[in-house]
C-alpha cells in the first residue's frame, strides 16, 4: 500500500506499440502525440466582431499553460518577436539581389504603411524592411485565414505549453479556457479538448457502469447468501488482487499506463469465481465436494495466459500481464484463506455420470470461424484505442482543412547522423517541394530550415552582407523609393553589425528563447543521430506527392496511420503466437491432467465461446481491437472455469451443487459485462459485449452439451 502513491500514470499510447523496426516506426513511437498539431486548440466564436474576438484572444493569453493565441496583431511589433530571430533576421532569408527586387520590397512596405503606420510598425519596418523576422515566424504561425463569412465567423487558435499526451496538463488548460469562454458562444475543438472530454467521459462512464455493476453484483450476492461474511469474502479477493497487481507494477515500472489499470481490473474479474465456487460447494453443515483441484487447474491455465502477456513485447500489454498474473495469484490465495474448504471426494468418476458431446461446440466454433473469415475481424486503427468518436475525428479533419493546420497523418521524416546535415537536407527537400506548392498539390510545408538555416547557409548570407556592392544596391533602391534616406538607418546599422559579427543563429538559442516550443518538434535528437520532420499542410493530390517523394532520396513520406496499423497488425500476430504457445501449454496440461476427451471438449467449448464473442463483437462494433483480444482472453478464462466444473460432475448432488455455483458465476459476469456493453465509449462497449456474449456461449455450451447417463 505504501508504494502505491509512487505510481505515475501515463496515457502515452506508444506504450502499446511493439518495439519499432523501421525509421518510420521509430518516428511514430517517439513522436506519438508530440507533433505541433497535438498542442493546438481551435475556438470557433459565434456572434463576435473582430474587436470582440481580439478581446477574447487577449483574455486567453493570460491563462497559465497557454503558449500563444492567434491571430496575434502584436506579432508585428519588435518586442513580441523572439530575441534570437530578431537578432539574426538578416541570416534567415536570402536578401534581394537586384535593385529592382529591393525596390519591389520597399514598395510593399510602402503599401503596408499606407494602412499601418503606428509607432511600433514604423520601428519594425525601419529595422527590418524585408520583414524577414516576421515572415519567417509566420510560416509557423497563423498567416492564414481565421475569419470567414465576411467577418461573421471567427476562429482563435490556442497553442498550449504542455505536450499532447499530457492529458492532466491539457485538462487544466481546457478547463481554464472553458471558464474564460463561459459568457460567449464558442466551440472548443482540437486534440487536447477531445482527449480531455474523452478522459472525462471514460471516467464518468467507468464510474457509472462499475458502480451499477457493483450494486447489481452485490445485490445478487446478498440475495443468494443473505449474510455479510460471504459477500465480503467474495469481494475481498478482488480487492487484494488489485492491490497486489498495483504493487507489482510499482516495483517493476516507473510509469503505469491508465489503460493497464482499467483493463487490469477487468482481467481480474475472473477471480470472483473462486470464492463463489468455494462458498457454493458447501451445504449448511459445511460439507461439500472438493473444488480446489478443479479451481487450481483453471487458475494455472489463466496464469499461463496472463503470464504470456508479460512477454508480449510492448510495455503496456506486459504491464497488463504482470498486473493480471500477480493479481490473480493474490486473489486465489485470499479466496483460499477466507473461504470454506470442502473436502469430500466424489465416489465415482465423472465419465460414468455424464457423456460430453463434442459436436455442438464444434458447430458453434466452425460457424464463428467462417463468420470471422468472411468479416474483417481486426481493427488495427490505433485511433480506435483512444477512442475518439468518429464524428469528432471527422470534425477535426474539417477544421484542420479549413484553417490550414498541418496534416496529422502525413509528414516527412529526414534521418541524419548530425544536426547540420539534417538542416541541410531539410532545405533541399523543402526546395524540391516548392514546385508542388506552386502547382497547388500541396498547400504548404513547415521544416526546421525555414527558421534555422544551416550554418553553411548562414555563412553564405553573412558573406553577402559583407559585400559592399550588396549594401550599395540597397541604397540605390532606397534613393529611388519615396522613403527618406535615413528611414532605414536601424536596418543599415544592423546589416553592418551582422556582417562584422561571427555569431550564428543556433538550435540551442531557439530552444532557450522559450516561446518557440515547435522547434523540438521540427528537429530533435534520436538514438542514432538527428531527426528532422517536415509538416505538410493542404495536401490536395496525395499520389503526386507520394511519387515526388519516392524520387527524393533525402526524405521519406511517413503515413503515421498506415505505420501504426502495420505495427498493430504485426503486433497482433506476435500476440497470437504467444497466445498460441500459451494455449498449447494449457491444452497439454488439461489433456495430461484430465482425459483426452474431456480436455478436447474443454478446448472446443473455449474455442466456441471465444469465436462467438469475437464474431458478435465484430458485427456490433466493426472490428476487434487489441483490447478485445484481452477481453477474449478473459472469456477463455471464465469459460474454462465453467467447462472444468461442469465436465467434472460425477453425481446428481454434485451436479446440483456445481450448477448453483456456475450459474451464479455466469450470472455475475454476464451482469457486469452486459452492463458495460451499454457504454457509449466504443472500446468499453466492445469489451462489454465481447465478454458478455463469450460468457453466455461458454455457459450454455458447458451446461447443455453433456448427456447425463445415470
Amino acid at each position, binding site marked *: 500500500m505504501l508504494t502505491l502513491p509512487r505510481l505515475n500514470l501515463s496515457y502515452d499510447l506508444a506504450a502499446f506499440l511493439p518495439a519499432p523496426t523501421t525509421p518510420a516506426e521509430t518516428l511514430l513511437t517517439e513522436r506519438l502525440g508530440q507533433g505541433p498539431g497535438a498542442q493546438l486548440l481551435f475556438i470557433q466564436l459565434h456572434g463576435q*466582431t*473582430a*474587436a470582440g*474576438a*481580439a478581446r477574447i*484572444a487577449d483574455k486567453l493569453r493570460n491563462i497559465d499553460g497557454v503558449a500563444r493565441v492567434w*491571430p496575434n*496583431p502584436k506579432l508585428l511589433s519588435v518586442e513580441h518577436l523572439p530575441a534570437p530571430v530578431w537578432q539574426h533576421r538578416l541570416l534567415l532569408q536570402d536578401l534581394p539581389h537586384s535593385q529592382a*527586387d529591393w525596390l*519591389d520590397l520597399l*514598395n*510593399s512596405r*510602402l*503599401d503596408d*504603411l*499606407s*494602412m*499601418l*503606420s*503606428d*509607432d511600433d*510598425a*514604423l520601428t519594425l*519596418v*525601419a529595422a527590418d524592411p524585408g520583414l524577414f523576422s516576421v515572415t519567417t515566424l509566420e510560416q509557423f504561425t497563423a*498567416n492564414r*485565414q*481565421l*475569419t470567414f463569412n*465576411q*467577418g*461573421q465567423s*471567427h476562429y482563435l487558435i490556442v497553442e498550449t505549453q504542455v505536450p499532447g499526451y499530457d492529458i492532466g496538463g491539457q485538462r487544466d488548460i481546457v478547463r481554464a479556457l472553458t471558464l474564460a469562454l463561459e459568457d460567449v458562444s464558442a466551440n472548443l475543438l482540437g486534440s487536447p479538448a477531445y482527449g480531455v472530454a474523452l478522459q472525462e467521459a471514460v471516467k464518468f462512464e467507468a464510474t457509472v457502469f462499475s458502480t451499477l455493476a457493483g450494486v447489481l453484483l452485490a445485490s445478487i450476492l446478498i440475495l443468494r447468501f443473505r449474510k455479510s461474511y460471504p459477500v465480503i469474502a467474495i469481494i475481498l479477493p478482488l480487492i487484494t488482487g488489485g492491490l497486489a497487481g498495483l504493487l507489482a507494477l510499482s516495483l517493476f515500472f516507473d510509469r503505469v499506463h491508465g489503460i493497464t489499470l482499467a483493463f487490469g481490473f477487468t482481467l481480474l474479474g475472473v477471480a470472483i469465481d473462486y470464492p463463489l465456487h468455494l462458498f457454493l460447494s458447501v451445504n449448511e453443515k459445511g460439507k461439500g465436494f472438493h473444488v480446489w483441484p478443479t479451481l487450481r487447474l483453471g487458475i494455472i491455465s489463466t496464469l499461463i495466459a496472463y503470464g504470456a502477456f508479460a512477454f508480449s513485447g510492448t510495455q503496456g500489454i506486459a504491464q497488463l500481464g504482470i498486473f493480471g498474473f500477480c493479481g490473480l495469484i493474490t486473489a486465489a490465495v485470499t479466496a483460499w484463506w477466507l473461504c470454506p474448504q470442502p473436502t469430500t471426494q466424489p465416489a465415482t468418476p465423472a465419465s460414468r455420470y455424464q457423456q460430453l458431446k463434442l459436436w455442438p461446440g464444434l458447430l458453434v466454433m466452425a460457424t464463428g470461424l467462417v463468420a470471422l473469415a468472411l468479416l474483417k475481424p481486426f481493427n488495427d486503427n490505433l485511433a480506435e484505442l483512444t477512442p475518439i468518436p468518429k464524428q469528432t475525428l471527422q470534425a477535426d479533419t474539417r477544421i484542420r482543412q479549413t484553417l490550414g493546420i498541418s496534416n496529422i497523418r502525413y509528414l516527412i521524416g529526414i534521418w541524419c547522423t548530425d544536426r547540420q546535415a539534417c538542416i541541410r537536407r531539410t532545405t533541399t527537400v523543402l526546395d524540391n517541394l516548392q514546385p508542388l506548392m506552386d502547382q497547388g498539390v500541396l498547400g504548404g510545408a513547415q521544416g526546421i530550415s525555414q527558421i534555422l538555416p544551416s550554418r553553411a547557409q548562414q555563412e553564405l548570407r553573412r558573406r553577402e552582407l559583407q559585400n559592399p556592392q550588396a549594401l550599395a544596391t540597397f541604397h540605390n533602391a532606397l534613393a529611388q523609393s*519615396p*522613403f*527618406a*534616406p535615413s*528611414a532605414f538607418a536601424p536596418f543599415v546599422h544592423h546589416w553592418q553589425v551582422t556582417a562584422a559579427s561571427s555569431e550564428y543563429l543556433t538550435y540551442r538559442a531557439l530552444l532557450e528563447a522559450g516561446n518557440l516550443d515547435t522547434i523540438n518538434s521540427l528537429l530533435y535528437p534520436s538514438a542514432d543521430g538527428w531527426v528532422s520532420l517536415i509538416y505538410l499542410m493542404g495536401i490536395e493530390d496525395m499520389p503526386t506527392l507520394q511519387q515526388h517523394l519516392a524520387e527524393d532520396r533525402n526524405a521519406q513520406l511517413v503515413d503515421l496511420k498506415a505505420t501504426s496499423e502495420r505495427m498493430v497488425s504485426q503486433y497482433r500476430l506476435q500476440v497470437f503466437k504467444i497466445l498460441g504457445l500459451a494455449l498449447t501449454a494449457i491444452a497439454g496440461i488439461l489433456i495430461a491432467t484430465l482425459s483426452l476427451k474431456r480436455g478436447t471438449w474443454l478446448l472446443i467449448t473455449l474455442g466456441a465461446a471465444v469465436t462467438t464473442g469475437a464474431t458478435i463483437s465484430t458485427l456490433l462494433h466493426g472490428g476487434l481491437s487489441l483490447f478485445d483480444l484481452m477481453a477474449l482472453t478473459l472469456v477463455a478464462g471464465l469459460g474454462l472455469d465453467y467447462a472444468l466444473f461442469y465436465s467434472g460432475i460425477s453425481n446428481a448432488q454434485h451436479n446440483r451443487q456445481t450448477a448453483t455455483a456456475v450459474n451464479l458465476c455466469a450470472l455475475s459476469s454476464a451482469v457486469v459485462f452486459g452492463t458495460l456493453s451499454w457504454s457509449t465509449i466504443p472500446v468499453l462497449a466492445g469489451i462489454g459485449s465481447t465478454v458478455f456474449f463469450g460468457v453466455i456461449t461458454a455457459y450454455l455450451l458447458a451446461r447443455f452439451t453433456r448427456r447425463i447417463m445415470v
Partner: protein
Amino acid sequence: MCRLFVATLFILSGSPGWSDTDVDTLLSNLQFPMEVDVNFQQTQLSPLLKRVNQQRGRLRRLNDNSLVMWIDHPRREERRLANGLVTVRRQHAGKERFRQMQLDPQRPSHLVLLALEAVTQGNRRMLDRHFDMSVQARADSWQITFVPRAQQIRQQLTHLLVSGQGERLTHLRSERIRADGTLSHWLQVSIDPVPAD
C-alpha cells in the same frame, strides 16, 4: 430634402452646439449607397517618407455591408473591411499575397480603418465608443472632428477629421500633431463625390 437638411445644419451651426440627434442624422446620411463605385485617392506622409505617398483606386460598399478598396495606382491591391476585419490581397514577386488582420481599436492605425468602416456604414455606436465628436458646418460643407477617447491612442492619433459636402463624405483625414504643434503624420482619404463609371 437633403439640401433642406444641410441648410438646416448650416443654420444650426451658428448656434452654440449640435445635438446628438443632429450628428446621428448626419452620420446616418453618410452611409454609402450599396454597390456603387466611387473613386478615391489616399495621400499620406510619415517620418519614414521623403515625399507624400499617393494611392488611387475605387471604393465600393457591398451588399453584405463590407467596404472594398481596389487600389489601381501605383500598385494593385485589394483591401476589404468587414466587421472589424481587414483582408489585403496584393501581387508581390509574381504571387498573390494574402493577409488578414483583426482590427484592434487599441492601435491607432487600426482605429482609423475601423472609423472609415463605421462612417461609411453610419455606425454611430462604434464611433461613440471610441471618439468624442464635434461638428462644424459652413454653407454646404461640414466637418466632424473625432478625438480618440483613450489617452494612449491620442499620443499617436491626435484626431480624425471627417468632412463632406451636402450628404456626401469627401475626406477622412487622420493627423498626429507634435507637442510643438507641428504635423508629424497624416493620412487622408479623398473620395470623389461623383460615382465612377
